[in-house]
């Protein structure tokens, strides 16, 4: 496929992160946008990636640190006493 040919769906799904990070060269960005303008299925795909990103952000809410705060505080108090090498 030549560089100025239209972008395929398969190509687009591999470039979506570059697109969202604004890291595509201008020509590829234009091909990406042109594809989206005509392909509702890829619009759906890009929307799914966007939803994935926000869902990942929410996925660790309320997950506590594993190591116990009590042990970590002992560590700190030991350090203050100069007991930590």
């Amino acid at each position: 496929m030549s560089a100025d040919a239209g972008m395929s769906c398969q190509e687009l799904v591999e470039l979506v992160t570059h697109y969202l990070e604004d890291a595509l060269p201008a020509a590829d960005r234009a091909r990406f946008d042109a594809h989206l303008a005509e392909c509702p299925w890829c619009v759906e795909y890009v929307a799914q990636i966007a939803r994935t990103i926000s869902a990942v952000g929410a996925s660790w809410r309320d997950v506590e640190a594993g190591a116990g705060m009590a042990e970590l505080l002992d560590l700190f108090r030991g350090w203050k006493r100069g007991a930590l090498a």
Partner: protein
Amino acid sequence: MSETLAPLTDPALAGDEELLGALRLGDERAYVALVRRYGALMQRVALGYVRTPAVAEEVVQETWCAVLTGLERFEGRAALKTWIMRILTNRAKTRGQREARSLPFSSLAEHEHDEPAVDPDRFLPADHPRYPGHWAAAPAEWSQTPDERLVAAETRDCIRTAIASLPPRQQVVISLRDVEGWSPEEVCELMDLSENNQRVLLHRARSQVRAELERYLTSEREVAA
């Protein structure tokens, strides 16, 4: 930088710089605030390299120990969080390598093949006369799933499991970028990655999590129908 002992008004809201200053003076609240801020992230990143939560916990503890004893030498050239996370990843890696050596098979090898974002079977073949590389069938539509559904406890479990099954470096990149909101530059600095490699790791990670989310959300739908 002022050397006066400015009292921390609210450690949870204080910036890292301020906490660092207070920590150097031995302020326990600053330490607690930093542990709360970075503890969960550290545990998660450590788990990307070692086998069990218990070992990850040890790595986190060793890291805080190294942070405290290294405070005097820390010159602040890197951001505090970068410095902490670098100590953590170095220790976790060492630990992971030691574990791998003591086991007959290394399941910790990085499986970072060039996996496609989407199963190639879902596209028309490259030699298709009219639509090469076009979706063979419409992708399942779930982008309009209500927020309540996407942040429901079970969905979050599904996402965490998906992240946990990624190769270590992908786990670290997606956690830092999409959970913690680090900038690409900060991630590159921490992990010694080029901008492009950082993006590639992020891309694979997000693509995999999207695929798992799709499997989860659409299989539930079939059950409901």
